[in-house]
């Protein structure tokens, strides 16, 4: 799978068996259970959001189904002071970072308040224009380095996004500056309908680091322990001044690109069922029960709790008023220029002051 020169890390195989020597943290029951819980929250939320979209309660939603190990693994490896520059598919990672489910719902609904995270205050909102976030990460990393802070910027991108010049330019800047940035590729095999092999003739995406003097490696993105491990190490290295790193996580997109997409138009059903066999949750659960850390009851009560948490978030979201009419003006500038006041007044006249969803 991986190029010879490119390191590849995997601990948990698809059947839950362990390969190689597990890193120490894998014995930390609390930590690993937290990873598992985060992954479950992500999947339950995902299912809920898709259902809401199908019933007209949310606009387009991009599920992360099947990629939870990637998201939860890398986000759990970050410290609170690190900064995440995510894409539209990184909701599960944002949850780990402390973004509220309700905020994610607001964002998805097209309510800008969803990006005004109460926690984490410095993380960027999801980037929609692909690959642009990578430059932000490098700039932020530069700022942190300049101030002598020890924080690290982490940014993600898809296999499709890795074809964009922005990604290359950002990595190149990071290489020259030896900036503390981790570039994570979520290689889920597809950019909407475009398969990985039409994105690039490079045998791995990790070797894109070669072009800019940034070390690249691959990891099994269905293995949360492997993801957590390699990202933790890369972050620690960057934190200690060793510069940027590129990590390609091999995942599968187990559903459509988004709720607006129908992958059956371009994806082979057999391929999909093969990929389901490698999905990340079951292998982790197998590991947990092999460790004696997890049973049926634990599972049931966890799922009940998570579903309750999600239901509360949905209720709060659905009970929320739309933003005030004037809000579209009030955050354009620190202070509204006189030039725009008449327009603002017109909108208030037409729609009122209230955030009444009108």
């Amino acid at each position, binding site marked *: 799978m991986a190029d010879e020169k490119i390191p590849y890390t995997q601990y948990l195989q698809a059947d839950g068996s362990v390969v190689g020597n597990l890193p120490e943290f894998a014995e930390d029951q609390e930590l690993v259970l937290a990873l598992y819980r985060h992954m479950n929250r992500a999947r339950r939320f995902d299912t809920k959001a898709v259902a809401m979209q199908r019933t007209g309660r949310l*606009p*387009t939603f991009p599920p992360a189904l099947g990629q939870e190990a990637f998201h939860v693994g890398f986000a759990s490896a970050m410290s609170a002071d690190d900064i995440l520059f995510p894409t*539209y598919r990184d909701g599960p990672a944002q949850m780990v970072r402390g973004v509220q489910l309700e905020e994610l719902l*607001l964002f*998805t*609904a*097209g*309510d*800008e308040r969803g990006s005004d995270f109460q926690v984490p205050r410095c993380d960027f909102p999801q980037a*929609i*224009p*692909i690959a642009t976030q990578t430059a932000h990460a490098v700039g932020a990393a530069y700022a942190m380095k300049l101030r002598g802070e020890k924080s690290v910027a982490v940014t993600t991108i898809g296999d*499709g*996004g890795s*074809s*964009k*010049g*922005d990604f290359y330019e950002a990595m190149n800047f990071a290489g020259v500056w030896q900036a503390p940035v981790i570039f994570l590729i979520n290689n889920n095999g597809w*950019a*909407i*309908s*475009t398969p990985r092999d*039409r*994105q*690039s003739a490079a045998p791995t995406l990790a070797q894109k680091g070669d072009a800019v003097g940034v070390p690249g490696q691959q990891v099994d993105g269905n293995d949360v322990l492997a993801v957590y491990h390699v990202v933790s190490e890369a972050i620690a290295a960057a934190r200690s001044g060793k510069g940027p790193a590129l990590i390609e996580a091999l995942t599968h997109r187990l559903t459509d690109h988004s709720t*607006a*997409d129908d992958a059956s*138009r*371009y994806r082979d059903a057999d391929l999909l069922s093969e990929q389901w066999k490698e999905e990340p949750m079951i292998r982790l659960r197998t590991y947990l029960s092999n460790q004696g850390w997890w049973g049926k009851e634990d599972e049931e009560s966890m799922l009940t709790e998570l579903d309750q948490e999600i239901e509360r978030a949905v209720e709060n979201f659905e009970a929320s008023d*739309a*933003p005030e*009419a004037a*809000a*579209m*003006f009030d955050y*354009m500038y620190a202070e509204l220029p006189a*030039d*725009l006041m008449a*327009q603002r007044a*017109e*909108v208030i006249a*037409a*729609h*009122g002051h209230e955030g009444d*969803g*009108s």
Partner: protein
Amino acid sequence: MTEVTLVQAVSMALARAMEEDENVVLLGEDVGVNGGVFRATKGLQKKFGSERVIDTPLAEAAIAGVAVGMAAQGLRPVAEFQFMGFSYPGLDQIICHASRLRNRTRGRLSCPIVYRAPYGGGIHGPEHHSESTEALYAHIPGLRVVIPSSPVRAYGLLLAAIRDPDPVIFLEPKRIYRAVKQDVEDDGEALPLDLCFTLRDGDDVTLVTWGAAVKETLAAAETLDSRYDIDAAVIDVATLTPLDMDTILASVEKTGRCVIVHEAPSTGGFGAEIAARLAERGLLSLLSPIERVTGYDVVPPGARTEHRYLINEDRIIAAARRAVFFPEAPTEQDHTMEDA
């Protein structure tokens, strides 16, 4: 004759152009197997092969740039930006090369390219999916900016754009991609790229518009007529640049009043250009200040509140009535402005 939607008319024109000229190729993200995220290129890769309907890697600057090389080599590329908001990485190539190659080489090389993009808001899209930045392109000499607002015009204008020997920015108002069906004859007849379309004659006020806003503007004209006995002309500019100002001037000469309607932000929008030309060449016809009914100078709000930003019939009606009543304000009782 077939009843088709605007997006189907786009498909029809593409298929027709590819049939009649083997140099026509399509390229873009997901235009092939998937037939485009809006299905505008549906079935075309099957029909014309993956060498002529090309699924590209994800990189808009390259899409814009390879089209220049293809065109200079005699192909007629039709390049798709998946959404207008993702066309900006291609601006450099379009401004610096596509629009200039003919001039730079005194005609030796040229760029018969169509850059297509769905544009505008109103589909509850995520951030960056509701852009109406046609004014950026309309400021660039050497380009044509063309915006169809009906199935018939989509078919005829797109054929014209593909056959045109120079680069065309072809913006498709996605809000009305499937809004109406029209009989479109697949006869290969193009529509002219140097004329505005007068959709409705009128003596009292001229409504000038393009894109999805044509829908609300036509509706407003109906209401102005039925409810207020105001006879509004409606002009669909369709080809923004080069601009057919004569059609607009002729109408305003008759009506003395002009309301310009577009979805893009007001400041520096293309409505400004039309207003400026009226103030230059039609000043003496004007019986009332020019009105612009446009998007506000803000980022288009997210899906939850975008209706407050989008053009609505009421704003057009109110502006038209202000123009007609000028210098009086329309009286309160006639004025039935409703909240959307």
